[in-house]
């Protein structure tokens, strides 16, 4: 099968799964209401797939590593820290957490400010990516520990409220916000896609990229900033889905067997749409709404991660 056909096949698969999300077992008596609700979920799925898919591809290209994902920056744990702090310090009914728009703006801006601050400090002192990644891991652990401490101090009612943020979900998305986000995420994606040849060169590694005339520092900084914005969008919108990026990028790589971003980027995103829709339907229809989608994704992703590690060890 040619590579274009494979991408096409994935496209069909993704389209079918989105149709499923929209129409599966729909209640025709309240069709208009239901389709609107489901449309919001479907667009949430698409935004998440695009942002997590392209940010993970970019990130792995910059770092020349197939295992790590942008969650290494600690954005996931910072997101949880923000939620738990607002609930603990202000109140569980504060507008900052109950109003989806306000909550998104709060999270998104803090995540981006944190990320840019981290880049600025690390790139001013060192010239390597590794210091940046290491400091990301340290911050991530710090935020997690802070979250754990504050969690203990929450009263049970607040904790229950906080719990809804711990796992990603497409069930409480805001319509107005989605339109703006679709626009932002799509334009970033088009920008990334238009530079696919530069990304191919970047994937060869630092020395080769410089040898072939890429302005390496500039490229890394630009792409890291895009990664940051995209990760912040998806985290602030639906919450942390740690393994999704890892899962879909490696599925894409294994399926296409290519380094070409021209095919890789769409394939990874289409895999993302498929997996998210699948997980969403599974959680809604099979397990009832009680099981959040990120648990399903992390279960599949985690198993795949371990399999890949073992395989890598064997070869």
């Amino acid at each position, binding site marked *: 099968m040619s590579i274009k056909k494979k991408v096409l096949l994935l496209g069909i698969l993704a389209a079918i799964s989105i149709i499923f999300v929209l129409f599966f077992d729909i209640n025709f008596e309240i069709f208009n209401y239901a389709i609107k609700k489901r449309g919001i979920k479907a667009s949430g799925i698409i935004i998440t797939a695009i942002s997590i898919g392209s940010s993970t591809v970019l990130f792995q290209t910059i770092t*020349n*590593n*197939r295992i790590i994902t942008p969650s290494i920056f600690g954005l996931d744990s910072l997101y949880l820290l923000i939620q738990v702090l607002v609930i603990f310090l202000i109140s569980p009914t504060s507008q900052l957490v109950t109003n989806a728009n306000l909550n998104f703006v709060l999270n998104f801006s803090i995540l981006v400010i944190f990320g840019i601050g981290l880049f600025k400090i690390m790139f001013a002192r060192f*010239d390597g990516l590794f210091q940046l990644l290491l400091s990301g891991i340290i911050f991530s652990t710090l935020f997690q520990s802070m979250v754990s401490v504050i969690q203990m101090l929450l009263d049970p009612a607040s904790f229950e409220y906080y719990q809804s943020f711990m796992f990603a979900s497409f069930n409480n998305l805001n319509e107005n916000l989605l339109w703006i986000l679709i626009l932002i995420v799509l334009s970033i994606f088009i920008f990334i896609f238009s530079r696919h*040849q530069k990304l*191919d*060169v970047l*994937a*060869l*590694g*630092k*020395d*080769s990229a*410089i*040898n*072939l*005339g*890429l*302005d390496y520092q500039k490229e890394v900084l630009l792409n890291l900033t895009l990664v940051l914005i995209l990760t912040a969008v998806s985290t602030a919108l639906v919450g942390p889905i740690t393994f999704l990026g890892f899962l879909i990028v490696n599925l894409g*790589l294994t399926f296409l*067997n*290519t*380094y070409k971003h021209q095919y890789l980027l769409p394939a990874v995103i289409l895999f993302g749409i498929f997996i998210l829709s699948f997980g969403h339907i599974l959680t809604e229809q099979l397990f009832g709404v009680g099981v959040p989608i990120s648990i399903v994704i992390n279960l599949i992703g985690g198993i795949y991660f371990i399999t890949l590690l073992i395989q890598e060890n064997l070869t």
Partner: protein
Amino acid sequence: MIQVNHITKAYSKKQVLQNVTLNIPNNKITTIIGPNGAGKSTLLGIIARLLTHQSGQIIIDETQLIDWNSLDLAKKLSILKQSNSTNIKITIFEIVSFGRYPHTKGKLTKQDHQKIIEALKFVDLYDIKDKYIDQLSGGQKQRAFIAALLAQDTDYIMLDEPLNNLDMKYMVETMQLLRKLVDQKNKTIVLVLHDINFAASYSDYLIALKDGRLVREGGVDEIVSSKLLKEIYDIEFEIIQKNNKPMCLYY
């Protein structure tokens, strides 16, 4: 011409290069020799802008290195590092076609295809051009990277230990190829080599480094003397002449 002016490089407190000043002549094979840790690869890396340096300047064709546009420089100067590995899924043909990137930004014309095929045939990899890099032996891999450099078609070509991993046959063929590039296509080649005999028999110009300092630069006859080599390598050398080329015996 490449001019190296007062280059100093240190990793935290360890001085790797100290005030190195030299000129690399055009249309010649220049080889940097010296013991381990002399700073050979570092010097090559600095000239090819892969590494930064603390003070001094590199001037390539009358323009300072920092004033060069990176893409323009990639059409002028190319480098192959000592260890080349890539973890991406890529075929030999694809990696060689990356050599054309500075000229085409990824859109290959017929002429580019011609150059790629020419380079592949030159290193004897044309028949297996669709094999993935991770299925190759060390020597085949090395030749694939050399082919990519040939496809890049720059005036200045720098190679760090290009003979590593190669069979004797390909060692000799690589050196003959480099010789041909200089003699027929007016390229300028800068090498780092460990084997003093390869360096002596194929180079026009030698640069001897030790402990980050320039010991001496000059023609082969000037450098390859038992006294100077002993000073650089700390062992006894006997030099014999064979076909007008010096040969070093050191074992």
